[in-house]
């Protein structure tokens, strides 16, 4: 394991933000930390970098306990959301900064900077200043700067959030390829679930300073550990109804349980299903989402746009029960299915 967090607590001015985070990341793994804003994602990253102190717990990087070390001694590099490029230095000088302040000879530092720039495809920008670069180009320079020093751990704080949609999708793929080529520990923080599902070898879902679930994108999607993960990952979010509500399948009708099923799992082909009233229909290209009400419970269904029902119509609603989940209503935790 290249990065281990054991029971890490952190906070600002008496207000605790992280309440005991345990995580371990393998040496060539890309871990995505996913969570809504305010979940403590950035704090987690800053605690690993040493920019904020851990009030309790231990942080181990490449076998060294770095909990009490200053940021410069942890051998990590970080890409900030704002990129934090030095406006008065050229892209090349920006990339070489970390090497030069560590007393690498200038020529050698420039050569390393040039190679790092080639790796991320910004070698043609080396003589320009940040003010002359587009958002995407700045992002590349920031990435090259992180790469140049060959650290033990890369920390990326929402690096794609300032890019427009098209560039974000493109850069996402490049980032994944880059990680595969470099093969080092990379922790990527985002609030974008699609980004997390596409990028991550594993995803850690963070909520209010606690890790809700760690798993592969497949695990997070197929077997969400809590109702929070179930609803946070997926758009529109998973439907959650009381287990003894109108939609009952082969699952136990436990009044303390909740059934969850994604919009894709809603069917209309069972004439014995309870009636649902279509309140609203959204069409997004080939797909349509119907927002229904089944016995006062909201249910979202996904279907091909061509098969969408009319607003106001009533349909028998059913669920593909193989794709349904059972949760404990009180704790929100996943219940084992009988």
């Amino acid at each position: 394991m290249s990065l281990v967090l054991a029971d890490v607590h952190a906070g600002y001015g008496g207000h605790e933000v992280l309440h005991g985070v345990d995580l371990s990341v393998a040496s060539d793994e890309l871990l995505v930390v996913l969570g809504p804003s305010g979940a403590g994602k950035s704090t987690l990253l800053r605690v690993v970098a040493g920019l904020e102190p851990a009030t309790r717990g231990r942080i181990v990087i490449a076998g060294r306990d770095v909990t009490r070390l200053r940021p410069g001694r942890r051998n990590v590099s970080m890409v900030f959301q704002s990129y934090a490029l030095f406006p008065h230095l050229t892209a090349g000088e920006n990339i070489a900064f970390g090497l030069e302040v560590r007393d690498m000879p200038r020529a050698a530092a420039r050569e390393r900077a040039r190679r790092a720039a080639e790796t991320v495809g910004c070698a043609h920008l080396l003589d320009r200043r940040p003010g002359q670069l587009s958002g995407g180009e700045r992002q590349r320079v920031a990435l090259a700067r992180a790469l140049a020093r060959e650290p033990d751990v890369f920390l990326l704080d929402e690096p794609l959030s300032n890019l427009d949609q098209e560039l974000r999708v493109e850069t996402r793929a490049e980032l994944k390829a880059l990680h595969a080529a470099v093969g080092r520990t990379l922790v990527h923080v985002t609030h974008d679930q699609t980004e997390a599902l596409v990028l991550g070898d594993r995803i850690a879902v963070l909520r209010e300073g606690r890790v809700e679930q760690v798993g592969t994108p497949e695990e997070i999607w197929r077997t969400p550990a809590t109702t929070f993960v179930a609803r946070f990952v997926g758009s529109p979010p998973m439907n959650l109804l009381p287990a003894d509500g109108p939609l009952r399948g082969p699952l136990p009708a436990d009044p303390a349980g909740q059934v969850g099923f994604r919009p894709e799992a809603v069917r209309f082909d069972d004439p014995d299903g309870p009636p649902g009233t279509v309140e609203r229909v959204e069409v997004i290209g080939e797909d349509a989402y119907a927002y229904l009400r089944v016995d006062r419970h909201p249910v979202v269904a996904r279907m091909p746009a061509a098969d969408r029902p009319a607003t106001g119509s009533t349909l028998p609603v059913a669920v593909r029960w193989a794709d349904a989940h059972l949760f404990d209503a009180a704790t929100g935790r996943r219940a084992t299915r009988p």
Partner: protein
Amino acid sequence: MLAPYALGLVGLVLVPAVVTLAMAFADYDLIQAPRWIGLDNFRELASDEIFHAALRNSLVFAAFAVPARLLLALGLALLLHRRAAVVGTARTTAALPSAVPEIAYGLLWLWLFNPLYGPINQLLQIGGGNGLTALGRTPPQWLTDPADAQAAIVAMSVFTIGEMFVILLATRQALPPEVYELAAIEDATGWDVFRRITLPLMAPVLGLLLLRDTILSFQVSFVPVLVVTEGGPPPYGTTNLSLFVYRTGFEYLRYGYAAAATIVMLLLTIGAVALQWHLIRRYRRLYGL
């Protein structure tokens, strides 16, 4: 809306400037009508020992006071930009001397500099005997030795940096924190951070303050010289250009001659500003700012 300002500008700046320019080529003593004398005033200035002393004193003051004021203000701003326990009090203390009226400030220093019972020399004499310092030397004769008196005027000026301090404090606080966090992650030393980040990023404002303080340096030393040293020690130990102009004009009623000296002052200021502007432009081009 602009009328009161325009009126003030014309009445208090433009008209006096034009009158001064005209008077520099005339002989005028308030009693007789002005007499056109061409460049005679400037010829007299060129051979006037008192004017030479005043010019020398003004340049010496600018050469020491301007860098000292700027460095001290920068040092205080960098020291006090963080939030910490006593920082608020310290900031107020740094800015406060600038709020004291100039005459009161001068009279205060007159007491501070008193060679016999002034606190500065009392402090310097701690550990020494027979009125000497701990190193066995005579304490500075602030108001009677020419060099010490010059140093006293510079010393007075380095405490009235409140405005510069506030501007530099605001400039430092406006710098993006991530840039410093990145430097911390890269293990940059304090000196590297100052040299490679803080100084270049603050340079445009520092350049501006340097220009402005140079322009002001001929003015800020007027009241101290008038109140504390009265231009002395005799004959002209601390007489500077502004005191020279004041005495020549308002005490000896030689308005034309004083106006000519003012023009020389103005030309000197323009020269200094042009030089600095040139250097700043070169710096900005170097960093593409």
